[in-house]
């Protein structure tokens, strides 16, 4: 076989695609009216960022104030305390500091729109990525038969319904477990590529055939439901306009291997287009840094910079929409306090979360800091003093306007934390 990447991609576009003026729906089928009611009737748009692999929260949100407990456990990986030099932490509150790669977030923190929660997480002790992610995304630590995600149950139980295909989207090729439930989320990789290809003179009929084969008018199974989503989404995305997207306020999204910057920009596009988006999930993977972590000048530093620059770009781009947006980050677990012999860190327990948005009571680090003293650790790891469900429950109740917390987080008694302003 020959190797000829560029040309194939160019020529592939010569395959027919459906035109801007051409709806994917067969002409005789009634078009769907799903543009949502005005934003005012609903809660915030939630942007949920999952940092897969277990981000090293002790390097991202540096507990420099814990002194020797931190610095002795991390002889080569610790982030220096603020003021040391350009590789030092950027101070937040006299105890915690931001990793220098997250410095772009400091201005947002200063204006009170970014909140850091430290020593939080899922209370289940599992150090398995797969179990811990599943517990966290189901919203039911310790129970893996739940089958639905916390966001899925939120969408199902909130007071309004919204038949937009963009109501809940997962950026990427696979949907996260948090979106599982009776509402069908849309998975979307690229707005530009979300269209049907085929032989031009047959495309209209081929489209009719697919609509028929999948019974999209009255989907009878899960595949049919997905097919209908495809039809609806293609229809809308084609009407989004033909000009290239220009982020506002000079925002520049990072261009990264994980598609994070690109994904955030597409979320921004959909929010501005008012297509009924309520929840967007996006991942940044690659945090499982068992070896050669490169906290300050290597792999971790670069990956964290993608996160920081992405969040800062989104914040700038969405300035006018901020009162209606809440962004949260989470990761399945933190990493062990003591570094390992491979210049890396093993699976741990407690970690941090970020909340960003117009309704966030930010500019502070919320933490019942358990300390990194050896006797305070949970099996060698940072203890969890704030259940991540309490953080999310507050967002769900106050910002997403869903009081049905018993459905979103079953069997959990919510403790109010005062992290956000109730949405007007």
């Amino acid at each position, binding site marked *: 076989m020959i190797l000829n990447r560029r040309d194939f991609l160019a020529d592939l576009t010569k395959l027919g695609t459906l035109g801007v003026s051409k709806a994917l729906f067969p002409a005789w089928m009634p078009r769907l009216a799903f543009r949502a009611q005005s934003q005012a009737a609903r809660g915030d748009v939630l942007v949920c960022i999952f940092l897969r692999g277990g981000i090293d929260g002790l390097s991202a949100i540096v507990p420099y104030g814990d002194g020797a407990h931190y610095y002795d456990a991390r002889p080569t990986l610790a982030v220096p305390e603020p003021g040391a030099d350009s590789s030092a932490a950027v101070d937040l509150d006299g105890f915690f500091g931001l990793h220098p790669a997250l410095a772009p977030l400091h201005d947002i923190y200063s204006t009170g729109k970014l909140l850091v929660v430290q020593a939080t997480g899922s209370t289940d002790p599992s150090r398995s990525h797969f179990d811990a992610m599943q517990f966290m995304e189901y919203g039911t630590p310790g129970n893996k038969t739940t089958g639905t995600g916390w966001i899925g149950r939120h969408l199902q139980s909130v007071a309004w319904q919204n038949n937009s295909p963009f109501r809940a989207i997962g950026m990427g090729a696979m949907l996260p477990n948090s979106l599982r439930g009776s509402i069908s989320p849309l998975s979307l990789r690229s707005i*530009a590529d979300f269209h049907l290809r085929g032989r031009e003179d047959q495309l209209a009929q081929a489209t009719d055939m697919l609509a028929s084969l999948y019974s999209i008018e009255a989907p009878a199974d899960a595949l049919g439901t997905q097919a209908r989503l495809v039809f609806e989404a293609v229809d809308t995305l084609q009407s989004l306009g033909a000009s290239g997207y220009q982020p506002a306020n000079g925002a520049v999204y990072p261009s990264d291997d994980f598609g994070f910057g690109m994904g955030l920009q597409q979320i921004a596009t959909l929010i501005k287009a008012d297509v009924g988006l309520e929840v967007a999930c996006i991942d940044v993977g690659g945090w499982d840094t068992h070896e050669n972590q490169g906290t300050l000048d290597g792999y971790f530093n670069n990956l964290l910079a993608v996160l920081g620059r992405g969040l800062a770009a989104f914040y700038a781009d969405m300035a006018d929409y901020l009162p209606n947006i809440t962004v949260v980050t989470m990761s399945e677990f933190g990493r062990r306090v003591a570094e390992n012999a491979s210049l890396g860190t093993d699976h741990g327990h407690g970690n941090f979360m970020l909340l960003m948005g117009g309704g966030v009571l930010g500019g502070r680090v919320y933490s019942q800091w358990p300390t990194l003293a050896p006797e305070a650790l949970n099996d060698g790891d940072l203890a969890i003093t704030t259940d991540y469900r309490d953080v999310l429950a507050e967002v769900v109740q106050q910002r997403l306007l869903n009081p049905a917390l018993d459905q979103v987080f079953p069997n959990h008694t919510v403790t109010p934390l005062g992290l956000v302003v109730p949405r007007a």
Partner: protein
Amino acid sequence: MAVSRRSFLKLTGVTAAASISLPQLAWMMSVQQQTDFFGAIDPVLHLVNRLTWGARPDEVEHAKSLGYEAYLEEQLYPQSIDDSQMDARLLRDVPILQLSRSQTYALTDNSYRTYLALTEGMVLRAVHSKCQLLERMVEFWTDHFNIPSDERGPDLVILHRDVLRRHALGNFRDLLFGTAQNPAMLYYLDNYLNIAEHPNENYARELMELHTLGVDGGYTEQDVREVARAFTGWTVREGTDTGFYFDPNVHDSESKTVLGHELPAGRGIEDGLHVLSIVANHPATAYYLCYKLCRRFVSDTPPLSLVESAAAIWIETHGEIIPVLRHIFLSEDFRQSAGQKLRRPLDFFIGALRASGTEFHDFYAMEHVLLELAQLPYGWHPPDGYPDVAAAWMNSSALLARWNAAMVLTHDALSNPDVQQYVTSHLMERIGQPATVGELVDAAAWQVFAAALPAALRSSFVAFVSDGEGANLAVTPHLLARKLGTLFGLLLASPLYQWR
């Protein structure tokens, strides 16, 4: 980075084609049709659907001539199959796969070239090998002991050839010991860094969680730590034959307790070997592996009675794979399971190649389609392997990617010379000489399903191909040029084809 909408802009001229409305489409209840189709399926076709990478008519014919059980036995013992054409082609097209470890490392650009060879070899074998069950089991073990191809390609070549392929239908113990000592695995799960002073738990944890006992297999966090200690010193050193090296200087030789077994002090490599024996022989491993095999070959939620009876055979035969597979394929649960597995994207892709005769001439063209389908071989990064259940693959992007792949794979030389240079299908050779549209639809459907279409589905395709004129319309070269590619594409894109 701006979102490019160039592809939208190009499209405005495309609307000329008159959209005929398909004749009074009585909405077909697709689900009912699937139920009917799979409910009435020939048992041998069901077996071929599950045991191969796509039921080509010639394969089904061969299986029927042998009969259900004899075909199964043939596939369980692939050494009896003459696959010399395949072997010759592999030798010609991907000679790297035959090299020794040191020869592979000696290649310039060895990481990249082994990636190409592994991927191309995987597709070639799945499409063309007569040892189809062997190929499916290699796929199973590739998922089970997942290592992405960007980790030490030359060692992956050795792992796949000398461990996963050699023992795919052998004994689980050999797979386990072989993977544990392969440098790609030692690197991927960090055991090469695991030393007494600072144990690294990554391999220890995944060994029990993913490779053997399963996450509910009854081990504790303390077991993880003890197992990590047992594997201290298992590392990689160049200059040795296999790259595997046990370094006694960094091994923790104190005593350990693993899953209730005492590992006495003062030992070396025996500690790790002992742990592998403990987990290989553990009943939780038998259950977990049989559960995964039943999930792969029977249904996403296999009957527990089948899993348990398979596990009993596993335990009795000490991890022999052939008797377990025979038990599963001969079970009543298997026979009743037609249509219950969603084709994974790679199933879909390989099946489409087998049905259409499509061949890629350009690696990146193929890679592009596989990436869009989100299942590039050896492309899954976490150690748990590509998901095996429908729910993981059932989403809008994935479905659209299948439709588009179906169209790209069949929309070829007939009309589009630009695409022809990357990919050629052989649709004309597959359909014989149909005189009427009815015959044409039947011939194409036969290549895709190795069975006749349900009546309502057939009339719908007839309406499409004949532009509403009916099954008796004569087939002309002009009609074939316009319709043949899209006909095959739609058959592959249909909901019926997504299941097997």
